[in-house]
């Protein structure tokens, strides 16, 4: 009965804060891993001009899409970090047994994951945008879109990461499950840069990205908690 009482809404915020602090501390202790992810992003982006040629007008047209697709792939690559280590050493089981509500703990973990993967990636994107000759306003549109869109990527991706916990075909399977769900974020994120390039206001795209973020903040932790309980069964 007492366990039931502490599972009420009042325990949600301490749960978020606890998981956020813990995961941030763990992530900051392995800084090399964070750097590798950013380098992956930079290298994938760099490969495209080498593949399609260095023609400025072509690169300007391809730039938004390439930067966004690379962000999707970088996000995908970082997803196993969310739960895999905790699942392997049994910590995740203890987390699921704790009196804090599981969706709150997961929200904290996802927030920590975004702060150490999506946020730095968004921060370096204006520099990489220079490689494609995007101008100032387009770089701002890219940065704003990534800041609004990458949290949604982490939230949706967390569901896939939880569903594929401990499975043999982990990485490739995760890509198959999650990338189709990323499609709307890619379309509106790259669309915001494209609209800015065409001299239009990107407010509509940002609104949709914001709406997707709000919807997934509400829905994804609950679905993710269900998936984790299934994996732990």
């Amino acid at each position, binding site marked *: 009965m007492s366990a039931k009482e502490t599972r009420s809404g009042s325990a949600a915020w301490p749960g978020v804060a606890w998981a956020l602090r813990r995961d941030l501390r763990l992530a900051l202790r392995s800084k090399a891993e964070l750097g590798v992810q950013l380098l992956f992003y930079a290298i994938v982006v760099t490969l495209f001009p080498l593949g399609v040629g260095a023609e400025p007008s072509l690169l300007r047209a391809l730039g938004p899409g390439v930067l966004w697709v690379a962000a999707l792939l970088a996000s995908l690559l970082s997803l196993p970090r969310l739960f895999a280590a905790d699942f392997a050493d049994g910590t995740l089981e203890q987390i699921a047994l704790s009196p804090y509500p599981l969706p709150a703990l997961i929200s904290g973990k996802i927030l920590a994951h975004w702060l150490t993967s999506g946020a730095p990636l968004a921060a370096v994107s204006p520099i990489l945008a220079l490689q494609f000759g995007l101008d100032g306003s387009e770089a701002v549109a890219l940065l704003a879109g990534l800041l609004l869109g990458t949290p949604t990527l982490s939230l*949706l991706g967390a*569901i896939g990461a939880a*569903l*594929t916990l401990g*499975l*043999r*075909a982990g990485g490739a*399977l995760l890509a*198959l*499950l999650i*990338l*189709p*769900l990323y*499609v*709307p974020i890619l*379309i*509106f994120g790259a*669309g915001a840069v*494209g609209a800015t390039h065409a001299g239009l206001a990107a407010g509509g795209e940002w609104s*949709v990205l914001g709406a*997707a973020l709000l919807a997934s903040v509400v*829905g994804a932790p609950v*679905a993710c908690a*269900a*998936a984790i309980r*299934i*994996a732990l*069964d």
Partner: protein
Amino acid sequence: MHLTSINWFRYASPVSFFPVAQRLARWFGAAAALLAIVGLWLGLVVAPTDAQQGDAYRIIFIHVPAAWMSMFIYLVMALWCGMSLTLNARLSAMMAQALAPTGALFTVIALWSGALWGRPAWGTYWAWDARMTSELILLFLYFGYMALRHSIDDPHRADRASAVLALVGAINVPIIYFSVKWWNTLHQGATVSLTAAPKMAAIMLTAMLIMTFSVWFYAIAITLTRVRAIILEREKSAAWVGTLVGAE
């Protein structure tokens, strides 16, 4: 028998559903074959050649029903998945599992026949039309569902994990459709559109609707047949399966 005395969950048990599924599968299979004969005869023989598209338009008698079914089956699959999660009924999960390959098959047929029609009509096998693109993504969703199922060995975990995935996918399908539609209208104007088709002759519409029911009944028949195989496979240690296999 009073309506209230019916036990609605009687057929949720694989034991009692197994023989019913066999009978239903036979009837729906026969109806599907009959309707296919009538529908194809009307569509390929009776219906006149289209003034603009020639005989190429006749692909719609396969293409449109397949495309409708591909989306409808995903919806039905998500429904069974929701029931399997909330009611914890084994048979619901088995139904979802049995529906997925048929749904994927119709998605492939819709894409393939669309490409074959697009070549003479649009001059290209593939255009990034909103419907085609979202149909392709639907195919990826089906493949993801089946791949997740196949990579989990424990059937109970496979049931529930794939159910969560199907429900998340079902929420996303309309979002994906509208975002692709928005993306497409921004990039290229409506140079090619399926919605702008000329008004359809009554005979063509009749043939298409008959083919739709044929495809629908085929999907029911094949799903019930597949679910019987799944029941036998998953209940193989149950006593009734032993007596059934021993008796036959």
